[in-house]
């Protein structure tokens, strides 16, 4: 389970970093979302992975650490708000700057960025 979990976090992070480095705002926003997913999974795993563990001592054979769950919840809420903001900002930038390039550059007729 650990290997699969680590692979998922790694894949999400790698895709997120790749997309964040793109030059259009839409892929960048998607990349930020993927990074947020990766970080949420990662935080969740920081309390170690337990199967069928209740986050209360004495309820099951092994207990899950409740703190990372609370941290992830906070991180999800904050990440959601930030994503909403960045989407609106990207739309605003598209309208204000007339281009969806992250530097707000104009597109030339041959499709190349100047």
């Amino acid at each position, binding site marked *: 389970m650990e290997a699969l979990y680590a692979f998922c976090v790694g894949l999400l992070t790698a895709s997120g970093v790749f997309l964040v480095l793109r030059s259009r705002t839409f892929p960048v926003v998607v990349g930020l979302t993927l990074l947020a997913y990766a970080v949420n999974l990662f*935080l969740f*795993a*920081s309390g*170690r992975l337990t199967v069928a563990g209740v986050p209360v001592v004495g309820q099951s054979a092994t207990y899950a650490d409740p*703190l990372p769950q609370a*941290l992830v919840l906070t991180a999800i809420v904050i990440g959601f708000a930030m994503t909403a*903001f960045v989407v609106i900002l990207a739309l605003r930038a598209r309208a204000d700057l007339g281009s969806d390039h*992250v530097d707000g550059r104009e597109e030339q007729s041959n499709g190349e960025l100047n």
Partner: protein
Amino acid sequence: MQHGVILPILIPLIAGILLMLPVMHKSVWRQRCGSLIASASVLMMSIWLLMQASTGDVTIYALGDWQPPYGIILVLDRLSALMLLLTSLLGFAAILYACHSDDTTGSFFHVLMQFQLMGINGAFLTGDLFNLFVFFEILLIASYALVIHGGGKQKTRANVHYVILNLVGSSLFLFALGILYGTLGTLNMADMAAKVAGVPVEDQALVEAGGLLLLVVFGLKAAAFPLYFWLPRTYSAAVAPVAALFAIMTKVGIYSILRVFTLIFGEEAGELKDLAVVWLWPAAVVTIMAGAVGVVAAQGMRTQVAYLVVVSVGTLLGGIALNSETGTAALLYYLIHSTLVSAGLFLLVDLIARQRGQAGDRIVGTHPLAQPVLLGILFFLGAIAIIGMPPFSGFIGKALLLKATPGVTDKLWLWPPLLLSSLLVLIALSRTGTTVFWRVSKGATKADSAEPGKVVATLLLLSAAPLLAIFGGPIAEYTTATAEQLHSPGELIRQILPGASATGGLRP
């Protein structure tokens, strides 16, 4: 006043919420009054807290009475009290300045300003690393909205970079927290500090990675090389009062570096002691030089002041890299000076730019200003202070830093960039001053004089330069005591966790 410690967070929060109500929101006058009253009361509160902290007592406030290390705590020591006072002073001056026109160019200015102050105050008070993250996000989301306050292409473009960079920074912060929680099993800073020394050898590399990731995140907030490229554009695009308040935002990064790397990875961290110093030296030197080159190359006065902020960040990083009590004392003095004076310069440049018509803040000759004498004297004062020439505070700050450098190697690292950058800043600011004030065309000026309220706000910040020099003795005593407190983290740890030993901590 047992609950006094949490008031610098609660007052702006409640004020921000009240200002959003339609009754308050409908009238600009009520908005301004409410915002000014709230920030003035936080200012009073901070002065009281500073007096409380200056006795050397550390006040610990356990939220919901959940005892550390299980609950979130607020810690008020000398450093956090000092930063609180600095923030509230800056906030008050920025709001006073904004009350004369800038707050009507967009909606919810005062609300956002209060939330921003709440986030900054919270970041300075908290004793929990995850809580620090939460307060970072509060101050960031308020700042995202404040950067584009007023609207316009330049602001939107700057904000896209600022927001994306900071969102990536937040992800890195969470990765670092995950690593540190996974290895140390706690997020209370004092508890982490108690446990770092007892980390098993196989986990040490992980803790190190987590700590250095934190350094990257704080370096991004502080605008250290190579993570400072967002700063000049963002700060020069934002409206003046916002830019002035942002002068403290880089210091939030500096504060976090100082806090985390003296407390958690400080004297008692065993093998992981002084984790960051190796990285701070080159970052400091390059930041100073890059900032100084930026000051010389800047085309506009706003950009120039923004680069001055970069130079001061580099200088402060150099102070942290010295990693000694005298070094920290000197850097804290320099921090007070550079925050207030650079914020004052942001306001002053805005005053000048408004009287220059179309030329704005560009460093070119144009028709004369409406108040050349007043603004000229203020510019001269601010420039002398920020360059670091006697008799004002910048000179004392830089002299203290130079004096605090111990060995020949350290001197070789810090002295040349510090002195060379002062020279470059001197050249650049003399050019700006002569161009703006002396190279003017003949003829009458069309601009109106500045509103008295704006001048008062600017004076409030720039008067720090002579005042910090006149009261240099008591202030240097306070910063020295603060540095002593910072460099003996053991006492703080034992006060927060009476059961903890120096090594091993409370591991169950």
